[in-house]
């Protein structure tokens, strides 16, 4: 399908399963970073729009990526090969320097603890996950390829350890990041009341923390994990997809619904003439 004479639009199915089990290896090696230069080169046009579509639980989902120039595609790839500061620490650990691993633990233990808490929703489990995730990272460091950030690799281990911990608590019942996501809630905003200005000021710090905890805990797990990784921990969409073994369209779809559901639920506390009436 073409769009004008300066560009080309390609509609294609997703090359990766939408909802593989957490931690499953992703299939397909053709990412859009590879596809864009190929399509631009073959078409001879300066612009390419790639629409990746897939059927998710009977629902059509698609996401559109546009690259106006080939250089904008090549640049991020080049950036990925620049060495992250953590790689120097990783190399020292590989050389037997335990102090370097000590530094990595100090650097990321808070983040791993937060992620584990958000997934397990249990303090003791989160403490165990922190220990197990770092120990596993230490033991498996030789398997870390260095083509991803050490932090992203560590988060993937922490997410898997957290899901395993949940499974243990549920006596072996399967736990996956797809859990409870078949909900229409949040797809379309319903509560359209505006919020009070600085609504959090109507609550004490502890009250606000309780509201935020309760609200995010109420999200389906598959949405909560995506929201935490993307919006709380600051991973990119691509890193979140890589970490969770999800496709990029699936991450984007879940993130939108997570954000809208959280917004809707917080509206109960923050809407005008509500917070001020407590």
């Amino acid at each position, binding site marked *: 399908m073409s769009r004008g004479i300066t560009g080309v639009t390609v509609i294609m199915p997703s090359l990766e399963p939408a909802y593989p089990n957490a931690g499953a290896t992703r299939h397909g090696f053709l990412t859009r970073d590879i596809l864009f230069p190929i399509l631009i080169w073959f078409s001879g046009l300066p612009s390419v729009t790639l629409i990746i579509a897939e059927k998710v639980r009977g629902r059509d989902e698609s996401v559109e990526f546009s690259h106006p120039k080939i250089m904008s595609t090549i640049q991020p790839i080049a950036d990925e090969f620049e060495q992250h500061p953590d790689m120097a620490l990783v190399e020292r650990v590989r050389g037997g320097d*335990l102090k370097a691993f*000590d530094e990595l633990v100090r650097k990321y233990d*808070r983040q791993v*603890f937060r992620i584990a808490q958000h997934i397990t929703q249990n303090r003791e489990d989160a403490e165990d996950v922190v220990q197990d995730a770092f120990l596993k990272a230490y033991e498996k460091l030789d398997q870390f390829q260095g083509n991803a950030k050490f932090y992203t690799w560590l988060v993937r281990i922490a997410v898997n350890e957290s899901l395993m911990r949940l499974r243990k608590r549920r006596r072996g019942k399967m736990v996956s990041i797809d859990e409870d996501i078949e909900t229409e809630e949040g797809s379309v905003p319903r509560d*359209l009341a*505006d919020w009070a200005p600085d609504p959090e000021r109507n609550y004490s710090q502890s009250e606000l923390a309780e509201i*935020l905890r309760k609200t*995010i805990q109420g999200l389906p797990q598959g949405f909560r994990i995506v929201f935490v990784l993307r*919006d709380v921990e600051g991973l990119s969409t691509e890193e979140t997809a890589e970490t969770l073994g999800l496709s990029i369209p699936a991450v984007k779809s879940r993130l939108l619904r997570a954000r809208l559901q959280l*917004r809707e639920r917080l509206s109960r506390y923050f809407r005008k003439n509500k917070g001020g009436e407590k």
Partner: protein
Amino acid sequence: MTCSEFLTLLDDLLDGTVSSETRAELQAHLHNCEHCEVTYNTTRKTIEIYRSHELYELPTGLRDRLHSAIMARCKKVC
């Protein structure tokens, strides 16, 4: 632009990943649609609140205890 079209691009607008042309279209829609303006502002606020409030802090005592346990276990497998 319809409200549905706006909604499909809401995340990109929030994340700042839209082109200047699309941004202008989205802002023009926001200017004329109170519902979408409320949705946009409150969703943005939702993200800000969660980013700025640490819900699960790691207390220093627990952190030190976990740290010691991790390093002791690592030494064992050295």
